[in-house]
Each structure stands twice: as structure tokens, then as C-alpha cells.
């Protein structure tokens, strides 16, 4: 009971400290605190459209964060969700443009599969190199992000370019490759349903399957697993592929649900923010649902705050960074307290 209370108190302290940082920054710009706070809240809850935008933004974050969290389970620090997302986006665009005549019933499963495969293949590179040659995946995944982003830049200017326009973008994809709009006029699309289904799938994989058990065990103590016959390399590589695949689905969802064509910059750093989301959600699928909605709300709200109160949106990154640091401090204090209590 006591420990439970402590947990709530420390969470309150973390929230308070984070709010203090945000208020401090707003005061620094010289904006009225009340105006800023009300425009932030109105940006999120002001209308049903505003609230729907939060869910639209949470969709790719949720998918990519699920991917990142699977990697974390085996100790595969995947900072490459951004690149894997773009590979998924490339895959759906190329597939839909090559086979424009497919009916939706074939097209949708096909683009989801190739998007997953493309993201998974992109993550397989660092996964294999880590498992086989112990090359740091942290750096490898980041480098591959830049490669993937530039690859998109090349493709929208060459083989995937729309010949009808002088701009770097692909043609509009055939309608059979579009995700259903769930609640027009809002932009919520079937990608959200896919994300929620993936939450269940990841939960089953990680907590209810033998492979998931092995993955978690490898993350906790690789050496002990090696000694007890669990195939550590296999678990690492599979978690990398599954994680990359989910991030690839985030790319599929953004193209099929929102943009309907490949352009540069479809992701304003979703893959990086997904890492924060995974950490906030404690790498738990359900936690990630809440964390992705929370972070999406933070970003949507801060955009409104920039429009009406003149507070730069980068306040969202500062708050995310500070929040993680405060949580890190809180977690380590707790583990210290628990050790001392024994």
C-alpha cells in the first residue's frame, strides 16, 4: 500500500515538474499563461474535429512505437523507426502503382504485407549485424534513417515521379489502395483500427507466445538464455523484423489513409517521437495506446498554442525530453528505495 502511494506521489511530482518547465518556457516568450494554456487545451478539446486530429496523429505514433517496443524487449535499441516507416511508404506506393487494377479486397492486404515486409527488411540489416557481428544497432539504425529518407527523395524525382507535375511527388495512388475514412468529415481512417489490432497482436506475441517469452528473456539476460538453450540471435533478429515491420505499417497507414501519394517529409519525425512514446508507455502495448494519444495531443495542442499565443511548437520536444529525464530520475530513485528497503 505504502509503495503504491509513493508511486502516485512521484508521478505527481514528475507531472508538476514537467508543467513547470512548460510554464517557464511560455513565460520566457512573454506570452500570457492563461491565453497559452487555453489555446493549448482548445487545440485539443475545442471541437470534435480537433479531437479527431489527435487520433489521426496518434495512429502512426502508435504503430511505430509498438515496433520500437518489441525491439526494446530483446534489448534491440531501434532508433530506426523513421527509416522503416519511409520504407513502408515506398513499398505501398510502388506496389499500388505497379498493380493499379487490383480490387480493394486484394490490394489492401497486399500493400499491408509489402509495407510490413519492407520495414522489416530495413530493420533486418541492423538486426542481423547486431546478432551476428555485435555491431551497434543504435548507430546503424540512425544511419539507415538518412539513407531511407534520401531514397524517398530520389524515387519521387525519378521512377515514382508523377510525370504530369513538375514537383517531386508520386502520382495519386489508385483508389483501391485507400484506407476507409471512418468518420467523415474528420480524417480518422482505418489505419487507427489497424493500429489497435496491432496492439492486440503485439500483446499476444510478447506476453502469450513462446517466442515472446524468449524475446523478453533475451532482453533480461542474454547470457543466461544462451546457457539454457534459447536461440538469442534468432530472438533478436525476429524482434528487429517485427519491430521494423510495424514501423513500416505506420508508413503504409500514412499513405493509404492520409496522403494517397508519396511525397518527401510525410513523417515529421514520427519515428523518433515513437521512441519517446514507447518509453512513456513502458514498452507495454496498452501503455503505448495511451502514450501515443497523449503525445499526439501534446503536439496538436502546441501547434494551436503557436498559432494563437506565439509559443514555438518546439516546446513539445523540450517537454518530451524533460519528461523522459524526470521519469528516469523517478525510476532510479524508486529502484534505489526498493534496494534500501530490503
Amino acid at each position: 500500500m505504502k509503495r503504491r502511494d509513493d508511486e502516485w506521489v512521484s508521478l505527481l511530482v514528475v507531472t508538476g515538474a514537467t508543467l513547470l518547465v512548460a510554464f517557464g518556457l511560455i513565460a520566457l516568450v512573454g506570452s500570457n499563461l492563461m491565453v497559452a494554456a487555453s489555446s493549448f487545451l482548445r487545440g485539443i478539446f475545442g471541437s470534435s474535429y480537433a479531437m479527431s486530429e489527435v487520433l489521426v496523429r496518434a495512429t502512426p505514433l502508435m504503430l511505430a512505437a509498438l515496433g520500437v517496443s518489441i525491439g526494446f524487449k530483446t534489448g534491440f535499441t531501434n532508433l530506426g523507426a523513421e527509416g522503416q516507416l519511409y520504407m513502408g511508404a515506398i513499398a505501398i506506393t510502388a506496389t499500388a502503382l505497379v498493380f493499379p487494377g487490383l480490387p480493394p479486397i486484394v490490394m489492401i492486404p497486399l500493400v499491408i504485407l509489402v509495407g510490413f515486409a519492407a520495414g522489416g527488411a530495413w530493420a533486418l540489416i541492423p538486426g542481423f549485424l547486431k546478432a551476428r557481428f555485435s555491431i551497434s544497432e543504435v548507430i546503424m539504425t540512425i544511419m539507415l534513417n538518412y539513407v531511407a529518407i534520401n531514397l524517398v527523395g530520389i524515387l519521387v524525382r525519378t521512377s515514382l515521379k508523377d510525370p504530369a507535375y513538375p514537383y517531386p511527388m508520386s502520382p495519386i495512388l489508385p483508389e483501391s489502395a485507400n484506407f476507409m475514412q471512418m468518420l467523415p468529415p474528420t480524417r480518422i481512417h482505418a489505419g487507427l483500427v489497424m493500429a489497435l489490432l496491432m496492439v492486440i497482436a503485439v500483446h499476444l506475441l510478447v506476453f502469450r507466445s513462446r517466442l515472446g517469452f524468449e524475446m523478453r528473456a533475451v532482453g533480461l539476460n542474454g547470457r543466461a538464455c544462451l546457457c539454457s538453450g534459447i536461440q538469442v540471435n534468432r530472438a533478436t533478429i525476429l524482434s528487429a523484423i517485427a519491430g521494423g515491420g510495424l514501423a513500416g505499417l505506420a508508413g503504409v497507414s500514412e499513405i493509404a489513409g492520409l496522403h494517397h501519394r508519396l511525397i518527401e517529409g510525410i513523417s515529421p519525425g514520427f519515428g523518433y517521437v515513437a521512441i519517446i512514446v514507447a518509453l512513456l508507455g513502458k514498452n507495454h502495448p496498452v501503455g503505448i495506446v495511451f502514450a501515443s494519444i497523449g503525445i499526439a495531443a501534446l503536439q496538436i495542442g502546441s501547434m494551436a498554442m503557436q498559432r494563437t499565443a506565439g509559443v514555438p511548437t518546439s516546446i513539445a520536444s523540450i517537454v518530451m525530453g524533460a519528461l523522459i529525464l524526470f521519469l528516469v530520475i523517478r525510476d532510479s530513485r524508486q529502484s534505489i528505495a526498493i534496494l534500501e528497503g530490503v
Partner: protein
Amino acid sequence: MEPIVVVTTFFAASIRMAIPLALAGLGESISEKSGLLNIGVEAIMLCGAFFSFMVVFSTGSFFLGILAGMLGGLSMSMLHAFLSIRFKANQTIVGLAQNFLALGLTSFLFLMSFGQTTTLPSTRVLGDLPIPLLSSIPFIGQVLFSQNLFVYLTLGCMVLAHICFYKTDFGVALHAVGEHPIAADTAGLQVHTIRYIAALFNGILGGLGGAYLTIVKLGFFQENITAGKGYIALVAVILGKRTPFGILGAALVIGGAEALQIRLQTAGTGIPSQLFAMFPYLMTIAALLLTIGSANDPAALGIPYDRDKR
């Protein structure tokens, strides 16, 4: 242009591209040798770049600007060290969070100071400082001795770090706390103090690397101006096996790739420039593959030291 001129300018450009990577990489290697793994080099460089720019912009003094760059870098590296040592936090997560923090903070403060402008506010840049006599040596004089202050500073730091690592007690202590902190502690070394000192160097050198970008190379600041250079510096550390001259060599190779891609981009080949922009990153990946089988990480890298644990 004559071929020799092309080669000379290419080498000179490679060196200039390598400087921020070499400085930040050297700082990180000191930190890693002591056992502190800081993937927040990006944050250190970004703060160095921002604060040095702001100070040069408002005071016009390069001396104060360089100082501010160092302090900016220090603020990040010391925060990392404090959380890693005092709170035994996961060092990778702290570094990652700091990258977010620094990216947000520098953009925020920049927008706050200048607002949304179409023309970037700029300053003059630190000029070249040819060394008398040496700079008139053919080729080498052009490549090596007609450069700016930071180039000489970097070379000096490399020599000093080499001496420090391999010829001084501090170098031995640094190795000891990174390889076997318990033994180091038993032998009377202050593990935590040495790690804080290592973080101090990391902040100063990384801050200088960032300052180079704004007040020497570009003369302006923009959001996310480092664009992954901090991560590439981490590669230089691994590739250079944490030895000063190894890191310098690795930085030169990657800097060369950067210089080459800029030349190809401006050559007007009709090929999308993204193909060339990708080149340094591919080069970095290839370089990482070369380190297969020769990893020499300090044994206690990334592991918090706890006296009461065995």
C-alpha cells in the same frame, strides 16, 4: 581548374568537414573510455552551435562565442553525467532524451530571439589563419597550414589527448575506471570524479565541434543544424577504436565523403542530389562493417558503478 588545384581544395575541404566530427569524437572517446556512453553528442553539438552563434551574433567576439559554445556543450554532458552517475540512469535513454531536449530548446530559443524570418540572421565567420612560412610549402601548406584556428586547435588536441591517454597517470586512471571500476576503486581511484572529469572534456570538445559549424563554417544557425553529425561522430569513435589519431583518421574519411558529395551535387550532373547526400551515410555504414570482429569496447561501458554491488 588544374588537377592539382582540384586535389588541393578537395583535401582542404575534407579537413574542414572532418573538424567537428574529430572534436566531438575525441570528447566522446574520453567519456567512453571512462565508461560513460553518451549518445547525446548531437545534443552537445547542437547546444555548442547555438550558444556560440548567439554570443558571436550579439557581441561580435569570437573569444566569447567559443567560450559560450563550450559552456553549451558542458551543460548537456554534465547533465548526462549527473543522471548517469548520481541516479544510475540508463545512459542510452538519457542521451536520447537529451537529443530531444536540445533540439527543442535550441529551436525554441532561436525562434524566440529572431521570430519567423525569411532571411536567416548571420554573422561573419572566423577567418583563415595561414601560418607564416609553413603555409608556403607546396600542397601541404595549402591543405594543412592555410586553415582556420579550429583546424590547428583540433590537431593540437589530438596530440595532447594522445599524450594524456598513453603517457600520463590520468590516462591510466581513465582506462582503469572504464575497464574495471571495482579494481580502480580498490586501488584508491575516485571512480565518479574521474567520470565527471571525462564528461567535462566531452562537453568542451563537443561544444567546440558544434561551435565550429555555426561560427566558422556557416555563419548562421538553423533548426537541427547538426543533422546527425553527433551520431556520425559516434561512428568515428568506434571506427577510430577510441584512439585520438584513429578518430582523426575516421573523421577525415567521413569528411572526405562529405566534401566529395558536395562537389558532385554542385557539378550539375542531373542526378538527384539525394543520391550524393546519401553517400556519407553509406560510407559510415561501410566503415562500421569494417569494424566487424575488432570491437574493443571498455568492459564497463554504459554500466553505472555502484560501490555496494559486486
